[in-house]
């Protein structure tokens, strides 16, 4: 009988931990939504930070994340293609795969420090390019890993069918393999975009922040996340409210992109 009781206890504890996890999710989302809705207004979308709005911050954050994707997506996809299509099974590919996984978990603040040394220190000022590079460095390993995984799901028969038709290796990759893995790769891109758009640490001393609307990447560049960090720690109530509104919007953006990604991959199945 004893072991049945033990069984019950353990299973109850496990259910309890799931409940705790869900509770925190709802707690965080509930406070965010409450504080966010209380402080959100149309005015913050049409004003810049200098006038108590977040228009420039949203624009800046998206510009940096999108430009970072322009670097990271082709590079990451090509690297994934090398690992799975050209170097498959080779020692080099397996070493690179491991190093890329290590890069994926490298502390984001260290990447910030690295890019500071590379692109801020020599030029003497914070700049948007540095922020973009830092975000791209964070994004590349994620894209490599998803591309690699998604290509591995493409059946070998498809490649063989292409070869039987006399297609060259690169034609087969571009016209058959990538097409077959399209949805999975797109999901990976969306998820990694959601990840970098919420990053703060790599931007703190690369792009830094800017109170004004600007598209000039050679100077300090506005960032939503860096602003949240600054605003939340100011003592005045107005700054905190703006921080809550910004945090709420950021979370909605990140969760929506995530849900779209998940929906895509589910639809495929």
């Amino acid at each position: 009988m004893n072991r049945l009781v033990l069984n019950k206890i353990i299973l109850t504890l496990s259910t309890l931990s799931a409940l705790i996890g869900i509770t925190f999710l709802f707690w965080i989302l509930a406070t965010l939504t409450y504080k966010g809705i209380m402080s959100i207004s149309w005015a913050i979308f049409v004003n810049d930070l200098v006038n108590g709005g977040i228009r420039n911050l949203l624009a800046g954050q998206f510009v940096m994340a999108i430009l970072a994707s322009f670097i990271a997506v082709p590079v990451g996809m090509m690297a994934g293609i090398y690992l799975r299509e050209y170097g498959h099974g080779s020692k080099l590919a397996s070493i690179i795969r491991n190093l890329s996984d290590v890069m994926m978990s490298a502390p984001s603040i260290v990447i910030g420090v690295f890019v500071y040394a590379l692109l801020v220190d020599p030029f003497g000022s914070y700049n948007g390019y540095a922020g973009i590079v830092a975000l791209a460095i964070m994004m590349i390993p994620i894209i490599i890993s998803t591309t690699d995984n998604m290509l591995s799901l493409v059946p070998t028969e498809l490649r063989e069918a292409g070869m039987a038709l006399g297609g060259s290796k690169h034609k087969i990759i571009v016209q058959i393999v990538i097409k077959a893995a399209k949805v999975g790769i797109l999901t990976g891109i969306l998820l990694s975009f959601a990840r970098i758009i919420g990053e703060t640490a790599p931007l703190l001393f690369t792009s830094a922040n800017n109170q004004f609307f600007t598209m000039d990447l050679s100077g300090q560049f506005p960032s939503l996340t860096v602003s949240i960090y600054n605003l939340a720690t100011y003592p005045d109530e107005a700054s905190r409210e703006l921080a809550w509104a910004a945090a709420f919007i950021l979370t909605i953006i990140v969760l929506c992109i995530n849900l779209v990604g998940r929906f895509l991959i589910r639809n495929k199945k």
Partner: protein
Amino acid sequence: MGGQFFRHFSFFSATLSFFLLVGIFAILFTYAQEALAEFGIDFLSADTWEADEDDEGGVFGGYIPIIGTLLSTFIAMVIAVPLAMGIAIFLTEVASENLAKPVSIAIELLAAIPSIIYGMWGLFYFAPIVQSIFGGNGVGLLTAGIVLAIMIIPFMAAITRDAMNTTPNILKESAYAMGATKFEVIKDVIMPYSKAGIIGSIILALGRALGETMAVAFLIGSVMSTVKHITDPTTSIPVLLANNFAEAQDLEMSAMYYLALILFVVSFIIISMAKFYFLGRKSAVK
């Protein structure tokens, strides 16, 4: 030829991860040179961090942020490991499929929330609770550790769940047929089978906790003082870098690079360990 170019470009992209890793190490090492020469290995155990008034020299030791990083990570792991295991067990063995799916999605969404949100929420909503229960002034090592735990739980639970899911049904069914309870199946069949994956997920989460910046920055207190009590405010390597790196000069700056180098090397070792553990096991199974 398009094909040749395509091939070369993909090869070049693949080697980029390698050059990035080497590049990060080389840059951090070069910029840390001044502090390395000045303080050497004693840097790890010295607990003074003071710049001279002219901002050019000073005495810098990494003891406080290093200990702060280790302790906050330790607290986080103590809380997160049992809870993450519980969630993974719930998802794989306890919940029906109709329940496991939404809970799984919720856990994964929790993992997707940016760390700055955890930090901000923790500062305004969680720190007061910690303060009323444990005393102190709200922000400090304990608060940082708990919120860090909340942050890594979903990540750890998701990987552990995937590892547990690899256990073949036939193994579980055989144990059930022998009259084993669910807990016995978990303990004697699933755990041993997915041990490598589970340990890997714990180590990966450990690496993530060590390098976490924003959640901790709001909550650890960011003061250069040693902890005597668990609720005392202190600092960690990422937090010190986040708050003071940009303003530092000369030798202090170099000391900051030294800290970044330590963090980078330690997380590199930890993550590689997790990866090689994973891989060693994977090839053995296949």
